[in-house]
């Protein structure tokens, strides 16, 4: 059974790493452990193709799962390297009493070992989401991602962080309880099968989908969509997202936005697969289009008067989750566009959050009004910030242009002209508004105290976002064959065509 235990290793390595991180007292070995686990996980993820399934098909890597696993693993590796610089800086600041620049109250950090352990448990949980082919197990895994990530949001022991972590935990738990209900409804819909109920194994469900009781199946889909949609950040259930993203350490925000939201999306995609197989695709697609456009529209209005650049990025994530849902809702080529956009969004958004982390660390402000003249005070980060803005708004040389364009084309091809117009309108509003904010921060002369020491930017805090940015740029001109194949196979699973 364990001839090729790749899947087991993918799960066990970060799990054991996390437990070890709790026990290691010295900083350097623990940080080395974090990066090496991330590196090993990365290698295994990209060579896991064709890994045999475990436990009678419960754990298996289909193209869809592999796509999301590769995104998660790539992001985690790059972010964990970035985190080394962050953790070292936080450690050096700990010697003095720290005052929060927003509420002016004193605060300390949580234990670094706990943060590292939670990061690795988080990776384990996300891997489990990607390899679960049993819907019950998938539910357990998605709930586990919430539990592993909540303590990370509260790393800075400040009141606002506590508030954000509480909201996150509570709202996502509500969502997950609804999704549990959805799973049970799905199980009941199998009661009409001749052989009685089947286990919620994805393969079995897909085989027998046309025989499932349609009304119960639809009810199940609604609950799964709302439940996992809460976690994915689809409006109007996104309210935890801006708080959690703006209050957690920036590299954690990068992971939340780039990896966690995708994992919740995968939960919805699994439900969509079953609807497709049951010939009820139209029902699910309408709902996804509705939620998608709603999320995009709502996010655009909130970006419109945003004074906090991390919250701006968070709302931009809501917008992009809307785009992903819309793409799948449109079907056909839109599904390929949506899968490709998931890759682009993850790379770009993580890059932006890492750059935001650099700005925050140096200028001690999240306000878009206070910050000007980045190009002079921190030129490399400023350049990354500007490129990130162009990439996230889907400007031409970047991969996101291609993916957003594919989704637009799908809307036009299917003669959904109203959707196409709304989509374009929202994208342009976001482009203009974010452009105004980002350019304001980029240009001009620095407002902050002139006696701020002009120190060089550390390579460890600019190389990781630069790598992410380059990947996003390369995808705009060249999609490597393995990725092309993975994307095509993943969209085929969802009933899409190229």
């Amino acid at each position, binding site marked *: 059974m364990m001839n090729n235990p790749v899947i087991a290793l993918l799960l066990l390595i970060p799990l054991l790493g996390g437990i070890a991180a709790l026990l290691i007292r010295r900083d350097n070995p623990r940080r080395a452990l974090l990066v090496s686990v991330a590196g090993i996980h990365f290698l295994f993820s990209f060579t896991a193709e064709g890994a045999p399934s475990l436990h009678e098909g419960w754990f298996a890597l289909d193209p869809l799962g592999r796509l999301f696993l590769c995104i998660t693993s790539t992001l985690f590796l790059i972010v964990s390297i970035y985190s080394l610089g962050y953790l070292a800086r936080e450690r050096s600041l700990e010697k003095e009493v720290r005052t929060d620049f927003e509420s002016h109250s004193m605060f300390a950090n949580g234990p670094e070992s706990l943060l590292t352990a939670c990061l690795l448990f988080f990776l384990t949980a996300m891997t489990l989401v990607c390899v679960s082919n049993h819907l019950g197990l998938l539910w357990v895994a998605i709930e586990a991602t919430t539990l592993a990530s909540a303590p990370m949001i509260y790393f800075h022991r400040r009141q606002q962080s506590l508030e954000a972590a509480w909201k996150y935990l509570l709202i996502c738990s509500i969502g997950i309880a609804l999704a549990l209900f959805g799973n049970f409804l799905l*199980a009941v819909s199998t009661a009409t099968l001749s052989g009685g109920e089947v286990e919620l194994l994805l393969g079995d469900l897909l085989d027998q989908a046309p025989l499932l009781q349609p009304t119960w199946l639809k009810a199940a889909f609604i609950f799964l969509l709302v439940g996992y949609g809460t976690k994915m950040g689809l409006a109007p259930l996104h309210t935890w997202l801006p708080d959690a993203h703006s209050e957690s350490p920036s590299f954690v925000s990068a992971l939340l936005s780039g990896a966690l939201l995708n994992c919740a999306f995968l939960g919805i995609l699994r439900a969509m697969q079953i609807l497709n197989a049951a010939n009820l695709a139209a029902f699910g697609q309408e709902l996804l289009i509705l939620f998608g456009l709603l999320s995009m529209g709502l996010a655009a209005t909130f970006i419109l008067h945003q004074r906090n650049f991390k919250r701006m990025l968070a709302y931009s994530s809501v917008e992009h989750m809307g785009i992903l849902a819309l793409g799948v809702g449109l079907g056909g080529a839109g599904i390929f566009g949506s899968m490709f956009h998931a890759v682009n969004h993850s790379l770009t958004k993580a890059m932006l959050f890492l750059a935001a982390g650099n700005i925050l660390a140096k200028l001690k402000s999240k306000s878009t009004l206070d910050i000007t003249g980045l190009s002079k005070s921190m030129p490399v980060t400023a350049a990354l910030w500007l490129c990130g803005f162009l990439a996230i708004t889907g400007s031409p040389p970047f991969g996101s242009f291609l993916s957003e364009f594919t989704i637009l084309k799908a809307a036009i091809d299917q003669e959904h002209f109203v959707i196409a117009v709304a989509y374009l309108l929202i994208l342009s509003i976001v482009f203009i508004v974010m452009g105004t904010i980002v350019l304001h921060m980029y240009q001009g002369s620095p407002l902050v105290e002139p006696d701020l020491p002009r120190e060089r930017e550390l390579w460890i805090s600019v190389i990781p976002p630069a790598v992410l940015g380059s990947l996003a740029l390369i995808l705009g001109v060249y999609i490597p064959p393995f990725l092309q194949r993975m994307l095509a196979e993943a969209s085929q699973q969802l009933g899409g065509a190229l």
Partner: protein
Amino acid sequence: MSDLIFVLLILTGFVFLGSGRLQFSIRTLALQGILLGSIPFLGSLQGLMGRVTFIASMSLIIKGLILPYFLTRAMHRSKAMHEDHPYVGFTASMLVGIVCLGVSFWLTSRLPVIESKPSQMAIAVAFFNLFVGLFVIMSRRKALTQVLGYLVMENGAYIFGVAYAIEAPFLVEFGILLDVFVAVFVMGIMIFHISKSFDHIDTDQLSSLVE
């Protein structure tokens, strides 16, 4: 016999809506946990296998004893014994409960009957507890009460699973229980932090993060 349990589960939902004393709410929740855990034992006894018995007893112990004990401790440590000023008063909450009950039965009537399954009552009770939990989370101030609301929601989903005897494999059942347990554990720790840094656990003070 199982209809009696469903009626009791509806009643506990109402008691939960109408009570402001946290100790009492926790006990109500414990009662719900015990009722839930005993459903599998009341059904057809011949079909009871070792695995089902084990999971049912474990859920009974966790939901009926361990979580209530843990929540009571959190209550004492945060020195919050009473839900003082809920956003929606207790009498109004009861009225909302009646509406929830009506909506639950209406929703249930919209779903087609499945022959091989027990009474439709189970799904109505499940919807009802789901709505009650959601309403409590939205209408109460204390962090602890919100956790209780979450548990009532979770129970709602669980009632459905248990009553319809959905064959969830051991790994999943165990995972669900473990997740709920850890969730409440983490929430309990956070309540402790909230009470330490805000001097109380009213979540309306958690409002610095608004647009």
